[in-house]
């Protein structure tokens, strides 16, 4: 059953490779992803036992990430059908295939309980993303791809070394040598501190560069800026969560070991630094796709801060992980539409989107408000929780900085987004084929609906899931 999560998309990929016709090929995506979604739902409903050897296990954290990715991917694949209809000239065989491979890799990340396997799956996602970013086949996109590939590979390599350190620390501590998560967690306290420290730092830097924690985020603006909207959505909403999950596994070990506090401190600082970077780079940003990249940096920072705070903030952080990925989906898809409609992503050409593409414009606006933490949307809930638990722990400095950065980021983002959405459409505008149509507007609309609902009512199953996950991370439920 769980292997289906991994194998089904691979089969789909093979299928897409066989389908000759651009138009029909696109339809494979929604079919596969819907099936994947169904399986995911079934698995979350009743969690199966661990595989022999315990390499494969779906715990609460995995369920969260898996669910988020599956939903996001389904929406994106629905969108892809509409989107690719506009890009028929460009061959999309590679795109479809790698999308599905990526889906299987992300699923593997979610369900693997062995760090080595986790690492392999993560590296696989990194590699499959490269052709997606390169979809547009122009100078800028190849540059973006190169930077993405190099930096992420370096990062992931560092992470591998971190894993080796971890394994070696078990040897030094005369324990059974393994990278199985439960064993590591149980023996965490006994691991040799020096090696453990080194391991944690290497893993943090490695996975952090994949997540895009500042200052390891440098590939993000380029990749997000040049990739097609739906790829951006998957990068910002899906892959970030995978890398985050890897980090969370490390976090579990760190908390179980004696010096969870130190690790949390490091996380707190990294998170705040990321938010600060985002705030600085957000100001006067004239390319709204790059702006979204920095927003993603910001939110990774927010989640990291939540992890650093621990306790009640963990629940909020995990909730924010979901909220962020869904909202990012809306942002990227809608701004992809706007990009198509204006054939530009610079604020000096793109104005009055609400007039030219009413739905996408409105969605972009709403998603902007959501992502900057305005009610009644979901991120407001999680951010408010994080702030209040920061103050609630008496950690006022963090709380104040957090609010300050949020405000600065809001200012920066508003001064970019509002001119794009509002105002009059410039007269001298090259005519483009794209106008808002059902297939490209409906998918982000679904996501927006979910974000809105989560903003006022968290379904009971999700709440339970979040509590269990937080409990896994050592937060009191």
């Amino acid at each position, binding site marked *: 059953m769980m292997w289906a999560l991994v194998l089904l998309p691979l089969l789909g990929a093979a299928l897409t490779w066989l389908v000759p016709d651009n138009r029909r090929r696109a339809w494979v995506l929604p079919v596969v992803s819907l099936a994947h979604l169904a399986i995911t739902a079934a698995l979350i409903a009743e969690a199966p036992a661990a595989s022999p050897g315990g390499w494969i296990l779906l715990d609460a954290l995995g369920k969260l990430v898996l669910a988020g990715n599956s939903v996001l991917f389904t929406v994106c694949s629905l969108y892809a059908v509409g989107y690719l209809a506009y890009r028929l000239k460009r061959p999309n065989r590679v795109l479809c295939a790698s999308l599905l491979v990526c889906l299987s890799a992300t699923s593997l990340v979610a369900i693997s309980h062995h760090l080595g396997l986790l690492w392999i799956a993560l590296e696989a996602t990194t590699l499959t993303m490269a052709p997606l970013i390169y979809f547009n086949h122009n100078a800028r996109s190849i540059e973006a791809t190169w930077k993405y590939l190099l930096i992420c590979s370096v990062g992931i390599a560092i992470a591998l070394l971190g894993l080796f350190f971890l394994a070696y620390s078990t040897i030094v501590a005369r324990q059974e040598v393994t990278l199985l998560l439960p064993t590591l967690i149980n023996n965490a306290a006994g691991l040799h501190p020096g090696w453990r420290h080194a391991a944690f730092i290497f893993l943090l830097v490695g996975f952090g560069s994949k997540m895009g924690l500042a200052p390891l985020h440098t590939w993000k603006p380029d990749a997000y800026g040049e990739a097609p909207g739906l790829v951006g959505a998957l990068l910002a909403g899906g892959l970030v969560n995978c890398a985050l999950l890897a980090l969370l596994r490390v976090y579990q070990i760190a908390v179980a070991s004696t010096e969870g506090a130190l690790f949390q401190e490091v996380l707190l600082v990294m998170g705040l630094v990321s938010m600060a970077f985002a705030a600085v*780079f957000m100001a006067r940003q004239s390319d709204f796709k790059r702006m979204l990249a920095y927003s993603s940096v910001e939110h990774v920072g927010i989640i990291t801060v939540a992890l650093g705070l621990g306790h009640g903030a963990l629940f909020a952080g995990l909730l924010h992980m979901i909220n962020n990925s869904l909202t990012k989906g809306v942002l990227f898809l809608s701004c992809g539409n706007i990009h198509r409609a204006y054939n530009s992503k610079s604020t000096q050409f793109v104005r009055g989107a609400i007039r030219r593409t009413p739905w996408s414009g409105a969605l972009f606006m709403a998603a902007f408000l959501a992502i900057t933490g305005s009610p009644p949307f979901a991120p407001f809930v999680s951010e408010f929780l994080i702030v209040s638990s920061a103050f609630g722990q008496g950690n006022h400095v963090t709380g104040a900085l957090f609010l300050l950065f949020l405000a600065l980021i809001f200012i920066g983002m508003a*001064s970019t987004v509002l001119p794009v959405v509002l105002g009059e459409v410039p007269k001298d505008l090259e005519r483009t084929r794209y106008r808002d149509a059902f297939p490209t507007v409906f998918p982000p609309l679904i996501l927006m609906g979910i974000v809105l609902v989560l903003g006022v009512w968290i379904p009971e199953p999700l709440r339970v899931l979040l509590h269990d996950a937080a409990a896994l991370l050592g937060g009191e439920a």
Partner: protein
Amino acid sequence: MLFFDMMRDPAFLVLCAIVLAGCSGLPGLFLRHGTLGQRLASVAALTSSLLALPSILYLLLGGGEASFTLNWNLPFGPCEVALDPLSLFFLIPIFLIFPAGSLYALGYWPAKSQASEKSVTFFYGLLACAMAMVVVARNGFLFMMSWEVMALSGYFLLVAEHGEKEVRSAGIVYLVASHLGGAALTALFASLFWITGSFSFPAPHSLAVAGGVTSTLFLLALAGFGSKAGMMPLHLWLPSAHANAPSHVSALLSGVMLKVGIYGLLRVISFVSERPLWWGALLASVGLTSALAGICVASAQKDIKRLLAYSSIENLGIITTGIGLFLLGEGSGNPRLAFLGLAAALFHVLNHAIFKPLLFFCAGSVMHAAGTRDLDRMGGLARRLPFTAFFALCGSIAICGLPPFNGFASEMLLYLGFFGEARSAVPFVALGAPVLAMVGGVAVIAFVKLYGIAFLGEPRTEAAAKGHEAPVTMLAPIGLLAALSLLGGLFPPVFMALVQPALRALAPDTGLVSALPVPPVWFAVAGGSVIILAAVLYLFLQGRVKGRQASGPTWGCGYLRPSPRIQYTGSSFGAFFSSLSGALIRTRLHVDPVTGLAPSAARLSYAPEETLLHRVVLPFLNIAGVACAFLRRLQHGEVQIYILYIFATLMLLLLWVH
């Protein structure tokens, strides 16, 4: 069956009304034709206030309280909603102005651009609902949620005509300001959570912690709520926002939304058991400052709605002063002062909620008639819009705080508070009286200017000459408000009856002086006799001159060919005073140089500028932007450098943990 039982419960009716108000704009979104949606919305609005107002009055006068716990599963503790006197009192303006505005919109909006009508109809209802929710919320998170929704719907209303650049920039300033305020409030409620351990509001007077903490809370509240209530110097967003919104929206924004800020302040103050004296001093001084500065700047405006917006700053300043006196009185064990201050504040909340929307509505009709917001392009509208002109006159007199209208009654209470302090050992507080007198004087300048320049004299432009009276749907709410403000002026006890319960709830110990020091009859006598005397005199004189009236042109002092453009304009009317008030009011002049022997036509244009914004804030923001641009060099494209970042981070972290 159960439902009907609940419908008998007035408190439940109020909640229903709130929900109804929120949904009032919904059908409009799905209807193809906007005006029908507006009609439905107006009907819904009227129904909601017909449901709400009687129940509110019943509860308020009957001393009833109620609290409900909504069922939600967000992790913020029980979501409590309660109606206590304070909430009920602040609900009154909402349910008074909201239906009035939406009735007004019926006539007002169709004439404007059709483009964003639906969204305006929708967000107008949402705004009212959100404000009401803010007022009834008893849970920090619910409060913040409704607060932000309120702010956002305000924004969307404000940018209804986002085609114009001015509107957009006003919108951005508004949004940023309200977000900063929201951040302060978030910090406030987070700290409350830290202190009490729950998101539910603490009971009144229950918050007894170290002085430093409560003072921080107070300052946070002042920053958050003060910026919403437009206290100087946090008012920067207010004038352009209120000037650029559609008129019925401006009415709601400035008539009610500012008061919600005041509500928040009062609510947070009510938590605290120990209130230092300096809170009162700070509030009083802030209030007087913004009252004086606000009205001075107002007197220099040439944009009719900007003028009104600045006068809102003045009135909110007066309210704040009242609250300040209340705290001073409490702190110094002087229940009389406390009572007068709070009574004046609450009374003025009602008054301002009546005459400011009245004036904004009139401004809307005037803008229709003259096609501009620029006072210097109006004139002579009284003959075209007789009813609007009359009601505007009532509003202007009322807002200047002159008898026989309601503005006088509340300012009277404040004066009595000040004068009472003249007898105390060190009569610092009494010094407020001359300042308030000054404010009154300048208010006369501002509103004589507004009324006289807009409505009287000769039309300065063709558009103004061809103005038309507003339809009855627009006149009805205006007339109602005018009548209310006269009522409040002649029979203050009517309004005091509404103020009393809230007052007792906020300051139980002022109960012993719960009667007005002025026998209220004198208000009626003075106002009534002035009106009657005037009427009698008028009839008498008309009798004298019957049949002996001649008419001719105004005497031009020997100037033969006068044109309407030689009249005193609004700017020239205010110029003399502005010249006295110095740096506070600057005017930007744009002059084309006149050159050559036969100079070509040159233009001169002038506009009062928002000194603080243009001289301080914007330059600072520019500097910050440049600084960020400098830092952004970090991301300068060389992948080698990026790898260096990774390496450096790795090394630094390793150093840190070892």
